[in-house]
């Protein structure tokens, strides 16, 4: 036991000794917190739109006025010709441009069917589609208002549970915990063994009276602590600074976190045991981090992926922890649901740790 304590202290010391790497443990997670939280939003607002109005009658002016009043649209650019329009789209000065033909207002006044053309920038097709739906709403509303037609009673009313205003930060911060823990956990674990190997101190460790298991456990402690502390800081900051509600159980959240960290450390150890140099370990951990994060459901819903890829995501530990984190923050998921996410996570943790230990032994002999 005292040997285990000694190696643990040594490993923590190795991580904290260098002032530069101490800074690296603190600053990046904080910067990521700020930038990720505010930058990663799939919302579309404040976009610039062009208008080529060749009709300038009551209805078309109403459309332009409503565009100007829309909170989702930033600046409106008046276009003079089709060439002007092509240029503005090509140079990405506007994401969409409305074309109102000369006979629009005449046809509208006669009560005929009317049409407004919209050119959108397909190079940003996702945002462009959303802008298209804004424009549709604006044009319909403008028409109804000019005609003075009452709007029919709504066919459907929509509400959102768990996040009534669809505040993106409420999704971002709980997901970000998963991202930060993954990035920090994998990169620190992967470095540990590789660094000793590169500096030649690994041999010294092997001739010491420590058993392989003790060495392994000692190496697991620092990334575990870093991940644990990072997640705790985020858990507090999300609620206190950003006002994200935490509706579930803290205990269940930590149960998920600990299991996830173990699964992650297993992956990191595996990479570390494979690497001969720090460079290899770092690049290896990066190559492992990318799919862990992109296949977690953070960047886009797993349900949108092709079927065969959805099956692969079942092997991704981040998938389960993301569900637990969001579930405990926003949805007050009961223990019965969390257990359903937890057991695959336990299986993955056992598998990755066993694989890492096996590879570790194999590489040592």
């Amino acid at each position: 036991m005292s040997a285990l304590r000694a190696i643990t202290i040594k490993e923590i010391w190795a991580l904290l000794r260098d002032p530069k790497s101490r800074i690296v443990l603190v600053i990046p997670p904080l910067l990521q917190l700020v930038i990720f939280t505010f930058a990663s939003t799939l919302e579309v607002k404040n976009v610039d739109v062009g208008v080529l109005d060749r009709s300038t009658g009551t209805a078309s002016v109403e459309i332009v006025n409503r565009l100007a009043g829309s909170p989702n649209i930033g600046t409106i650019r008046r276009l003079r010709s089709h060439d002007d329009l092509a240029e503005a789209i090509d140079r990405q000065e506007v994401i969409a441009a409305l074309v109102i033909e000369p006979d629009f207002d005449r046809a509208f006044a006669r009560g005929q069917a009317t049409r407004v053309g919209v050119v959108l920038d397909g190079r940003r097709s996702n945002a462009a589609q959303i802008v298209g739906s804004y424009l549709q709403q604006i044009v319909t509303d403008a028409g109804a208002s000019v005609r003075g037609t009452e709007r029919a009673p709504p066919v459907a009313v929509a509400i959102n549970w768990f996040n009534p205003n669809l505040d993106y930060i409420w999704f971002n911060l709980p997901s970000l915990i998963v991202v930060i823990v993954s990035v920090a956990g994998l990169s620190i674990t992967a470095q540990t063994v590789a660094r000793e190997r590169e500096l030649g101190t690994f041999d010294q460790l092997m001739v010491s009276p420590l058993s392989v298991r003790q060495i392994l456990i000692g190496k697991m402690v620092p990334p575990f602590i870093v991940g644990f502390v990072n997640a705790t800081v985020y858990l507090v900051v999300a609620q206190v600074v950003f006002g994200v509600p935490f509706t579930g159980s803290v205990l269940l959240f930590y149960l998920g976190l600990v299991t996830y960290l173990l699964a992650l450390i297993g992956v990191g150890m595996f990479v570390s045991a494979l690497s001969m140099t720090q460079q290899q370990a770092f690049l290896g951990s990066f190559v492992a981090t990318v799919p862990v994060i992109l296949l977690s459901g953070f960047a886009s819903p797993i349900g949108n992926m092709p079927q065969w890829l959805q099956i692969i995501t079942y092997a991704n530990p981040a998938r389960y922890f993301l569900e637990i984190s969001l579930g405990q923050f926003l949805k007050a998921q009961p223990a019965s649901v969390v257990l359903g996410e937890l057991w695959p996570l336990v299986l993955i943790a056992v598998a990755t740790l066993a694989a890492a230990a096996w590879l570790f032994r194999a590489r040592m002999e």
Partner: protein
Amino acid sequence: MSGRRRSEWRIDGQRLRAMVVKEGVQILRDPSTILIAIALPVLLLFLFGYAINLDNSRTRIGLALQDDSAAALSLASAYRHSPYFDVVVERTAAPLREQLIAGEIRGIVVIPQDFGSGAARGQRPPIQIIADGSQPNAANFTSAYARGVAQTWAAQEARAAGLRAPPPTELSLRFWYNPSLASRYFLVPGAIAIVITMIGTLLTSLVIAREWERGTMEAMMATPMRMSEFLASKIVPYFLLALASMAMCTVLATTVFGVPLRGSLFALLVLTMAYLMPALGQGLFISAATKNQFVASQVALLSGFLPTFLLSGFLFEIASMPKWIQAITYIVPARYFIPALQTVFLAGDIWSLILPAIGYLLVFGAIFFLLCFRASRRSLDK
């Protein structure tokens, strides 16, 4: 002093060639460089080509059918036949609520009890759409599509009943350069930019840091090599490696992922070379400033990879970000590179967009190389 400085800028061809060959051999010998130059591009293109799918596909929703009138059943069957939804039908909302909390369904549509009787009186109560707000983007799509199904159904009912509404203004949307609206088309060029950033910034930053950490830097200093030659010898191999990777990515993007290449190879080459200037310069600067592989790798990740991913506008709209973050994006080289790259792939050689981008990239590159030169020289003087 000035004489010495001038000599530092000069490059001796033969010495440089020897150094480049040495670096090249080192690259080829290290499996991790191959991992980054070949395996990572394939993995990233693959993930952005398939995994990141912003185009909504079938969503699983629950339908609480509290009414069994003809109108309610007809609306329910409209949902069942919608290509956007997989529908689970229940008589009440309670079991669906559980499923929504467990994440098994993404939304609930409630057709209320008096739906049919109200419709007969001409006062049809609205149906209720409940979306899972814990995933805001998906929630938006779910309620928009669910509403669309109901509206289409209501319009059909009205037409069948012989009601004539004044024709609403139609919007004809034309998506230039990507009429099929495949998000893959703009994500794959973004993934290519990430690959180039990884090779240019991350890999390079590790290289000099390693020289310092292993103490081979002193050995270098003892040779008659000049600073400029040293830097050039570190840059040239990675420049070539990045171009090779770019070539591979372009072939993969156009063949496997079906992304069109409407611009010229010349524009693609010039643009990539321009982007490699700031990317390589940043990597060299990081390594010279940190002299520690672990720190260099973390700084490179933070200042190279993350901004390319988050602040370049390729996944998240810059206009939607807070003003102060928008201000930061102006100093992210990828912000200029990615739209230009997407343009070359999807639109063609629109030089009025590409040339200014190249200009910005070269300016950033020059700044980084200057910083780098200063950082390296100072450390040699020490």
